């Protein structure tokens, strides 16, 4: 395309002559240069799952070390690296990108758009995430992985043995990726909705993505500043956290947790959104109190900014600050509790079908409620003095982040897998997966409550016998291997499904939202005609009307352009009352211009780790990195987003 002979009229841009525009639609290059939100979503999902396996292996090593007193599976130094990298991996390389995988794949489909607002920026986010993760992991072979804990408290983080250089730069790269993605999704949701898709008709998952995007936009720069300060101290000898030069290391804690507590909601709100989609579908009822669920999500988003110091009760901020943050922390449990009651009320009286996505959603509600309740106990300052830095805290945040986020995300994986691949995961194997994981999870993390209250500190690489900790640590380790088994069952399910899974059809769950109105997997342009939305749950209302007794009556063929077969059958878009658009008179997909693939997001993202290695090792790489970024950005800016 670099030498197009006849330029279309009215196109004011000149063609570049450096690279030919990538054109592959299959094969490796088509994935490397893709800007299609669905492909980027899959890339996010697969990459995040790989990191999930790595983070899981780290967890198994940790549990093996702690299975018995005086364990010697790993050294103390290796243990510090393992728990630090386990936390960083699960938060920044698993839960956030796995949520981003669903944002990418589902948001445009759910709001009736053909792509995100900035397709190339979307590709850039993915590559920056991948390179940031690989950069972080390269530390294992380049002098030692970060060992100062995932929240990297100063001044420990500035000890040479903590290896926090890679932590600071790795999280900066991942932060760039997440900020860019968040801006992209905020704009997509504000600006790319189909006609009639007003804010209060958006699916709850879209709403939660919207809230998460704003949390990321505002929270990440605070972490960015903290990371720069840490890195400057480590590399350039500045004094941000050096007490001898007049500094106050508590600054790091404030900066970190001012990011870190919104981050907690960044991790849990997407799962809450998924559960809010799954429960109505499998109860065959609308979500109970939709506006209340939405406003609770928004309230959590706002209140999440006023609770960060509950991570710091033991620091000594004084009784006034501690009391204020204790109150705000108890208060934020209110909108969270409201959501839980709404979910229960959605189930109440529903025509419930216990399919795997619903099981994981129910697991989410139960486990998250336990984690939420133990969270409220932290809000009581005197009790928190007892719990701080014990395994009780470890139990709490695993109940909300594993029992909450990971169960919610698995619910989403089972729910949307047929939409993404066109095949249904095995229900029978899925149920085995669920029960193994639920039991394994509770065996692993339930006993940690007891261990914590018995006084076992977190982050010790070994413990002596005779403290009463031996039994429950053994149970916990057995549980962790049960979780690992359940993940193997899931992987088996995936392999089996890819080989001989049942075809799903467009709408296997008889679902409610727009993504189920198009074929599975969706065509590259998503919607042949952009749907017009007339209500919440538009796809449901296209299929069913309400009878005189309030019973469901399938909409008859031809009625209001709805589906021409019974519910659950494969059919053409019938979404709400009518459809408009350019039409596909020229035939399937013609006349619809999708953004063209591009090399430049990859090139710009590649410059980031090069620059980061340069900052650590050699000026040459700094220059290389900056040049790579500039080449990427200029090529990007000068390239039209779509070829004619």
């Amino acid at each position, binding site marked *: 395309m670099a030498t197009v002979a006849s330029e279309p009229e009215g196109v004011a841009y000149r063609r570049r002559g450096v690279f030919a525009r990538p054109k592959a639609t299959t094969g490796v290059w088509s994935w490397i240069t893709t800007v299609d939100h669905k492909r980027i979503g899959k890339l996010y999902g697969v990459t995040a799952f790989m990191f999930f396996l790595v983070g899981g292996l780290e967890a198994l090593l940790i549990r093996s070390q702690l299975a018995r007193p005086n364990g010697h599976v790993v050294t103390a130094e290796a243990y510090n690296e393992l728990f630090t990298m386990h936390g960083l991996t699960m938060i920044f390389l698993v839960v956030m990108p796995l949520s981003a995988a669903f944002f990418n794949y589902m948001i445009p489909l759910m709001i009736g758009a053909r792509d995100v607002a900035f397709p190339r920026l979307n590709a850039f986010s993915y590559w920056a995430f991948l390179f940031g993760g690989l950069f972080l992991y390269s530390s294992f072979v380049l002098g030692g992985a970060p060992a100062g804990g995932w929240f990297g408290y100063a001044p420990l983080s500035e000890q040479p043995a903590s290896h926090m250089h890679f932590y600071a730069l790795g999280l900066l790269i991942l932060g760039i990726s997440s900020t860019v993605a968040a801006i992209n999704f905020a704009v997509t949701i504000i600006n790319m909705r189909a006609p009639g898709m007003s804010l209060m008709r958006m699916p709850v998952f879209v709403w939660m993505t919207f809230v998460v995007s704003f949390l990321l936009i505002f929270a990440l720069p605070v972490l960015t500043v903290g990371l720069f300060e840490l890195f400057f101290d480590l590399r*350039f000898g500045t004094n941000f956290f050096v007490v001898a*030069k007049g500094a106050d290391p508590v600054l790091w804690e404030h900066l970190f947790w001012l990011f870190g507590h919104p981050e907690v909601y960044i991790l849990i709100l997407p799962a809450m959104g998924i559960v809010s989609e799954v429960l109505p579908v499998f109860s065959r009822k609308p979500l109970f109190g939709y506006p209340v669920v939405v406003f609770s999500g928004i309230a959590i988003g706002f209140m999440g900014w006023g609770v960060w110091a509950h991570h710091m009760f033991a620091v000594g901020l004084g009784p006034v600050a501690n009391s204020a943050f204790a109150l705000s922390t108890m208060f934020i449990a209110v909108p969270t509790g409201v959501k839980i009651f709404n979910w229960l009320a959605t189930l109440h009286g529903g025509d419930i079908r216990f399919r795997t996505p619903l099981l994981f959603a129910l697991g989410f509600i139960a486990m998250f409620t336990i984690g939420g309740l133990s969270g409220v106990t932290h809000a009581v300052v005197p009790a928190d003095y007892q719990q701080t830095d014990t395994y009780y805290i470890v139990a709490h945040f695993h109940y909300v982040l594993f029992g909450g986020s990971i169960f919610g995300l698995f619910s989403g994986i089972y729910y949307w897998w047929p939409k993404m691949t066109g095949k249904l995961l095995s229900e029978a194997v899925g149920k085995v997966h669920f029960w193994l994981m639920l039991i394994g999870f509770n065996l692993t993390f339930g006993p940690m409550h007891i261990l914590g209250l018995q006084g076992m500190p977190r982050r010790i690489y070994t413990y002596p016998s005779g403290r009463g900790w031996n039994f429950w640590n053994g149970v916990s380790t057995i549980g962790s291997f049960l979780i690992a088994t359940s993940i193997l069952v899931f992987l088996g399910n995936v392999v089996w499904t890819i080989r001989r899974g049942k075809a799903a059809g467009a709408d296997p769950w008889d679902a409610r939202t727009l993504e189920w109105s198009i074929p599975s997997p969706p065509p590259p342009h998503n919607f042949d005609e952009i749907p017009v939305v007339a209500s919440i749950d538009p796809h449901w209302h296209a299929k069913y009307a309400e009878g005189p007794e309030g019973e469901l009556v399938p909409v008859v063929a031809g009625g209001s352009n709805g589906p021409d077969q019974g519910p659950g059958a494969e059919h053409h878009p019938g979404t709400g009352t009518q459809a408009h658009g350019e039409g596909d008179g020229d035939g399937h997909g013609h006349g619809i211009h999708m953004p063209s693939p591009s090399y430049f997001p990859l090139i710009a993202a590649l410059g980031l780790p090069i620059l980061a290695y340069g900052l650590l090792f050699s000026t040459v790489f700094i220059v290389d990195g900056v040049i790579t970024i500039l080449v990427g950005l200029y090529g990007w800016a000068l390239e039209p987003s779509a070829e004619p």
Partner: protein
Amino acid sequence: MATHIKAVEHGAATSTGLSNAKLGMWAFLASECLLFGALISTFLLYRDRHVTGLTPQKVYDIPYTSVSSFVLLMSSLTMVLALAAIQRGDHAKLRTWLVATALLGMTFISGQVYEFTRFVQDGMTIKTNVIATSFFTLTGFHGAHVTVGILMLLSLFGMSLDGRLPVERAEAVELVGLYWHFVDIVWIVIFTVVYLIPKSS
């Protein structure tokens, strides 16, 4: 065909009527507010601490920095003139004002480089103490932002010379303008906090 490209490029028919790029820029600037907010908070936390060695309050020259601040604020005026020029299709004036804005920005940056050099010669480096550390980091981050802005202005200038900046793409100038004004406004806050508010005893 061309209309399709325009639809993609200009985000026509968006839900709000605003272009995607402009909303994206506003969201980015919102994020930047917190970045500078955290840096300014760091400086405010440390500015009154008891330290050994020189501090910015002992070495800076307020009249000198006031002049360079004035230069930077005037660049916002030339930026507005550049946008007005492209919106009425006057490409020659556009290029004049873009270069003027970039030059004013460069004057400001040169002033900062001179100021930093003099501080270092006086014996205050980024390592001296925690006040100096947070001073250099805060003003340095701002300087880096101005530098990126200058690069964007010069890029616009180059694109305009090359014929890649037709009237329909006036929004590109507007976006760079938003960023430029933001960097100016942040400087007003930094100048006030760092230079004008006296150190409490």
